[in-house]
Each structure stands twice: as structure tokens, then as C-alpha cells.
């Protein structure tokens, strides 16, 4: 019916052919390349999670051998942590939105952005090759001396894969930092930046300062395995615990690489669906930097039981409590934003509410674990597993799904079928809680992690069956969006520039946006989330 009117040119239809995608320098297309690849890794990690839950359905180790089970949980962790959670929000939503939200045409270094995707792919393929050739059984933490001297699985190849993928993360963070510093549109002052940008800025700081440390640490492990260097070898006076220090110096802050961008998403969602500026904007903004800073000082709480001095433990315990403050600032301020807001319950808002609830539980149980006395009991048990899944899955995954739903109309220019999205949000929430809440109880009762069997006592099997049932529901909840979102891309009604009626530069341009993002460079005159003229004069 509109055959006479030429379709407007956007980033999706501006050029055609495989080369126009695989050699693109457009941050929006690179975001889509990342979206597809992280989804594949998420699927692989999910398959291993299902296998783990299947084994734990019964107390006896009757599904796979303990060696195979060790490989399952290792590959689950490696795929999910390094190849899904770390790049998930920054490399997809962040890549798409960081330039748009600050009114720039692209990231500062478009070629490096494309390079980061290829590096990610090479690293990922190496890890997958290691998996196909027989896998690795050290746990995603690669603790020495097991990883350097004992394990005869593919530690080197997996390690090199993670080493390589780390550089893609460094380059993404590096690109964001430079872009946010140098490419803001006229009038886009630091205190007018959307909170999504602040969160990505803080996460980027961790990416550029933490990731190189894990890179060099894995390099040391590889040197020790291949060339018989002796950094962590106790027979030569080396210290395996030094490995743990170096590993967690990155891997604890890495949790904040995962969750900070998620927090940025939630700030946008809460403001958008409450039709209000985020309460205490500057506190929420600066608390991101606070989390990044304090997050670098808490790694020792992973070593309360690893021969660390009691005084070091005391300090790390205190600092771990401290990191709760900026996190709590965010949760309180989001809640305060809801107060007297015009709240509407579209699907992204359901995810946001889920995030707040689950992240709060994840955060508060983190305080349990920061207490040395309690940690001695809970260490290396299912309480820990439940805790970090509440933060990583309940936090990051829900924020990722919420953000994907929120910006999907912008990315594709199409609307998905909202009732499906609402149902899947509820399924994810229910399935998640059913999976992981029983694990808190199991952990408290003493069930250790990383074993493929458990004794038939105290109703442990009932709780494990609940957990496995929950995992099946959760799987359904995360697979559903793949169908209705993909369907909407082809058959969905056009979204228009601003389907949610929210603020932000990305909503002021067409959906999907033109290749240069804006017809002309926007000039910013208002603070973010200015829904009314009153808000605009804050």
C-alpha cells in the first residue's frame, strides 16, 4: 500500500550483503553481531546447566561420572561468565546505545569495535574447541596447583581462549571510556548523562583495569603448564594462593562488570515506566563509580578459608560490607523513584521489578558471606552458588532481558506481542526463584558445591528436585523471547520513534535509526528523564 513511498534508509537496510555486516564499522550492526553470538554462548552454557541439574535430580551419581560432571560445571561457568555475562549487556545494548544516548554518530574507534567482536569470536571458538576435544575440569576458577600440575584436561586451550576474549572486553571498555569523554553532543554535560551511561562508564573502568590482570594471570598458568615455569608451584616455593589473589583481583570486580550495566538498564526502565526522573540522580550516578572503586578492594573475601591472615580477612570483610552501601543507594533510590510515579506495567518494567527483588536478595545474602564466621560454614557450598546466581542471573540476566525488550522496538523498528512478553517475564521470575531459593536452604544445611552426588538426608533430594523443576521453567522463560522477538522482527507492527513515550536522545530518532544515528547532531538543553517542564528545570 505504501509502494509509492520509498522506505526510509536506516542502519539495517542502508547496505546489503554479508560483507556489509561482517566488515561493518557501525556500532549498531556490531551490537547485533554480538547479540547473536552471546545468545549462542548463552545457549551452550544453558545446556551445561541443564545437565548439571539433571545429574542432581537424584542423590546417586547415576547420570554421569564425577569426571564428566566436573567438566559440565566448568564449561557451564566458563561459557556463562566469560562468554555470556561479561559481554552481554555492554557489548550488545551498550554498543548500540552508548553513542546514541550521548548524541554521537558512532563510538570513538569503530574499527577497534569491530576488532573486539572478532577477538571475542576467536577466543570463544578456542574455548568451544577445547570443549569439543574433551573439555576442562578445573572449575571456571582454574585454581592452582590443580590447574597447573594435576589436571590433564584442556586447561591451556581454554585459558588461552579466555585470555583472548579478555582483550575484546578491554577494547569495549576502552572504546566506551574514550567515547563518553570525547564524543558527547553539545550540551550533554556529565550531569545530564543518562544513568545507563554512568553505569557503563564505571563498568568500563573495571574492564580496562581488571581484565589485564586476569589475562596475565592466565598467561602465568599457561607458562607454568607448557614451559614448566614455577610461579605457583609449592614444590619450588611458589604460592598457589597468590594465584587466587590475582584471579579474584579481576574476578570479583568482574561481577560488577556484569551487574553495573544491568543497573544502568534498570535506572532507565524505572524512570521510563514511572514517568519520573530517577530520585537522587547524582547519588545513583556516583554510586556506580563507588561500586567500581570499592569493588576492587574486596577480592580477599574469596579467601577467608585459604590461609589468608585473620587481619587481612577482617579488612576484606569490612570492605565487603562497605560495597553494600553504593548498591543499597541504588535500590533505595529506584524504590523512591516509584513513589508517586505514574507507573505502568509493560514487560520491561516487570523485569525491572524482578531485578530489584532478586538483586536485593542476592546483595543481602552477600552480607551473610562477608561475615567471616558465617562464611566458614557456608564457604564452597550451595548457599554461595545461590547467592551469586541471584546476583548474576537474577540481576544481570533479568536486566539484560528487560533492556532487550525495552530497546527492541528501537533496534528493529518493530513491536513484539506484549502479552507473550509479560507471560515470559513472570515465567522467568517464578522459574528462577524455584531454581535457586532451595539452594540457599541446601547450602545452609551443608550441601557442598561441585559434587555430582549427595547423601539422602534431611530432604536434600526434595530441594534438589524443586531446583531442577525450577530450572526447566526458567529455561522455558528464556527461550520464549527468542521466538516472539524474532517473529516480531519479521511480522511485528512498526514501532515508531518512541513507542514507550519516554525520554532520551535514542528515542528522538527514527526506529530503526539511520546509520549516522541522527539526522543532525542533537543539542541537549535538559537533564535526563525530564518528563515534565518542571523536571526540565531541576
Amino acid at each position, binding site marked *: 500500500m505504501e509502494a509509492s513511498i520509498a522506505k526510509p534508509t536506516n542502519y539495517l537496510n542502508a547496505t546489503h550483503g554479508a560483507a556489509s555486516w561482517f566488515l561493518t564499522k557501525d556500532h549498531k550492526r556490531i551490537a547485533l553481531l554480538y547479540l547473536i553470538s552471546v545468545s549462542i554462548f548463552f545457549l551452550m552454557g544453558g545446556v551445561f546447566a541443564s545437565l548439571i541439574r539433571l545429574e542432581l535430580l537424584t542423590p546417586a551419581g547415576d547420570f554421569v561420572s564425577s569426571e564428566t560432571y566436573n567438566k559440565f560445571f566448568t564449561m557451564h561457568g566458563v561459557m556463562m561468565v566469560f562468554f555470556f555475562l561479561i559481554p552481554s549487556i555492554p557489548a550488545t545494548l551498550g554498543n548500540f546505545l552508548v553513542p546514541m544516548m550521548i548524541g*554521537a554518530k558512532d563510538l*570513538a574507534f569503530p574499527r577497534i569495535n569491530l576488532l573486539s567482536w572478532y577477538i571475542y569470536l576467536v577466543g570463544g571458538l578456542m574455548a568451544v574447541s577445547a570443549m569439543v576435544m574433551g573439555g576442562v575440569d578445573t572449575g571456571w576458577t582454574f585454581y592452582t596447583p590443580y590447574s597447573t600440575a594435576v589436571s590433564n584436561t584442556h586447561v591451556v586451550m581454554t585459558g588461552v581462549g579466555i585470555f583472548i576474549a579478555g582483550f575484546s572486553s578491554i577494547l569495549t571498555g576502552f572504546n566506551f571510556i*574514550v567515547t563518553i569523554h570525547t564524543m558527547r553532543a553539545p550540551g550533554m554535560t556529565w550531569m545530564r548523562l543518562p544513568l545507563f551511561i554512568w553505569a557503563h562508564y564505571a563498568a568500563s573502568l573495571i574492564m580496562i583495569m581488571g581484565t589485564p590482570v586476569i589475562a596475565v594471570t592466565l598467561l*602465568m598458568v599457561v607458562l607454568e603448564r607448557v614451559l614448566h615455569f*614455577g610461579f605457583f608451584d609449592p614444590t619450588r616455593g611458589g604460592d598457589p594462593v*597468590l594465584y587466587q589473589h*590475582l584471579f579474584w583481583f579481576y574476578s570479583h570486580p568482574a561481577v560488577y562488570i556484569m551487574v553495573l550495566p544491568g543497573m544502568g538498564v534498570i535506572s532507565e526502565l524505572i524512570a521510563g515506566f514511572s514517568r519520573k526522573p530517577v530520585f537522587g540522580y547524582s547519588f545513583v550516578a556516583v554510586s556506580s563509580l563507588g561500586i567500581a572503586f570499592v569493588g576492587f578492594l574486596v577480592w580477599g573475601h574469596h579467601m577467608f578459608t585459604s590461609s589468608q591472615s585473620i587481619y587481612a580477612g577482617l579488612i576484606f570483610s569490612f570492605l565487603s560490607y562497605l560495597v553494600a552501601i553504593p548498591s543499597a543507594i541504588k535500590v533505595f533510590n529506584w524504590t523512591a523513584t516509584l513513589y508517586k510515579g505514574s507507573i505502568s506495567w509493560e514487560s520491561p518494567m516487570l523485569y525491572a521489578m524482578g531485578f530489584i527483588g532478586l538483586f536485593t536478595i542476592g546483595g543481602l545474602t552477600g552480607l551473610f558471606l562477608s561475615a567471616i564466621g558465617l562464611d566458614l560454614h557456608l564457604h564452597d557450598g550451595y548457599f554461595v552458588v545461590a547467592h551469586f546466581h541471584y546476583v548474576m542471573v537474577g540481576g544481570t540476566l533479568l536486566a539484560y532481558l528487560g533492556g532487550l525488550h525495552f530497546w527492541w522496538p528501537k533496534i528493529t523498528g518493530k513491536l513484539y506481542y506484549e502479552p507473550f512478553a509479560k507471560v515470559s517475564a513472570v515465567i522467568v521470575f517464578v522459574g528462577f526463584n524455584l531454581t535457586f531459593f532451595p539452594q540457599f536452604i541446601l547450602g545452609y544445611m551443608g550441601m557442598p558445591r561441585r559434587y555430582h552426588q549427595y547423601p539422602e538426608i534431611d530432604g536434600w533430594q526434595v530441594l534438589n528436585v524443586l531446583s531442577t523443576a525450577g530450572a526447566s521453567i526458567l529455561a522455558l522463560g528464556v527461550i520464549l523471547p527468542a521466538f516472539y522477538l524474532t517473529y516480531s522482527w519479521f511480522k511485528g507492527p512498526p514501532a515508531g520513534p518512541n513507542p514507550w513515550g519516554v525520554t532520551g536522545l535514542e528515542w528522538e530518532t527514527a526506529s530503526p535509526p539511520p546509520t*549516522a544515528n541522527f539526522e543532525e547532531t542533537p543539542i541537549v538543553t535538559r537533564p535526563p528523564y525530564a518528563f515534565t517542564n518542571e523536571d526540565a528545570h531541576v
Partner: protein
Amino acid sequence: MSEVHAALADHGHEHHPRLQHHFDSLEQQLYASTFGMWVFLVTEVLFFGGLFMAYIVYRIWYPDMFVHASSHLSVPLGTFNTAVLIGSSLTMAYAVNAAQRGARPREQVIWLFGTMVLGAIFLGVKVIEYMDKITHHLVPGPNFHFEDPAYQATAQIYYSLYFALTGLHASHMIVGMVILAILAYKAAKGQFTAEWYTPVEIMGLYWHFVDLVWIFLFPLLYLIGGAH
């Protein structure tokens, strides 16, 4: 096509051919590139930082071993290499200066090439030192042999650190020399002018950083051995 013309007309002035489309001005582009290199160098500091951390821990644990193990390094060769690297920083600074002034291509190439030559001398000396360690069985692993049996085990930690730190440093120099070669080729074609000299500028930052790492490595590895 008409849209393209409209877009061009919109800008109203001629663009420098080196200005990428997503930047507004050459100044912004230079700022982004230079700032980017500084951010990258922060990453590099942390990259070396992990190994320096290991060095600190083991130096505190085994101070005597470090002294003994270090005395097998050649201070004259280390000193020579330090002088060579500082010299290469000087030629690099001249190369940046020549590009900033938009000096004749010949002059730019000479300074870039000179930096490469000094880098190659450094690496050549490094190879001699490595060969010496190999022949004296000072490479950690099953063939490691240390004259004082008291340090047979722990001295391997020192040499693990020595090879990892200097090897990582040398690999950075090799990368730098490849980039220098590319820059020299571009300089020969007269691509760097007073208006646009960004690659030489940020290469200078990188090269000075790599030199600076050596300035730390030299005393920490070579000069702790005392009189030998």
C-alpha cells in the same frame, strides 16, 4: 545520491581527508586518539602489574635467593641495553617532533628508522642474554640447575619472573617495531603533516611506556645482586 549531496552541503566547508566521519573536527579526533592511548596504557600498567605483584611477594619471601639468582645476570649488558632504550626514546621524541612540525618525509623516516634500529639492538642483546641463560641451565623447569643447591628450587621462581617480565617487555617492543615500520612507510609517502600526525604522536606514547617498563625492570632484576 541527492541525500549525500545534501549532507555534504550541510557541513558547509571542506573536510580534511583524514577526518573520520564520526568526528566533528581534527582536534576532537586527535584528542580521542591521544586519550585512547593513555587509557590503553592504564591497561598495560595493570597487565604488567600482575607480574610485578608476584615479584613483590616473592622478593619479600625470599630476599637472599633474589640476590643470589640476580647475580647471574650481566649488569654490563643490562646497562648497555638501558642506554640503548633511553636513546631510542630520544629518537622517538624527535620523530614525534618532526611529524608535529610537518618536517620533510626524509627527516621523519630517519628518526622513526633510528628508533627501530635501537630497538633491534636492544632485542639482539636480549637474545644473547637469553642464550646465555639457556646454556647455563637457568631456564626454569626440569633442566634447571643452580650452583648453590640451597636455592635450586626457589631460584626457579626468580627466573620464571625474569623470563616472563622481560619476555612480555620484549614482545611489546616487537609489536612496537612492526608499527614503527608501518609508520616509517607512511612517513616516506608524506602522510604526516602539521595538521595530522596522530599515529606518530600516540606511537610515541606507547614507545615511551615500553621504555619506562624497562626502567623498572632493570634495577629490580639486575641491580639487586650486589657486587659480583
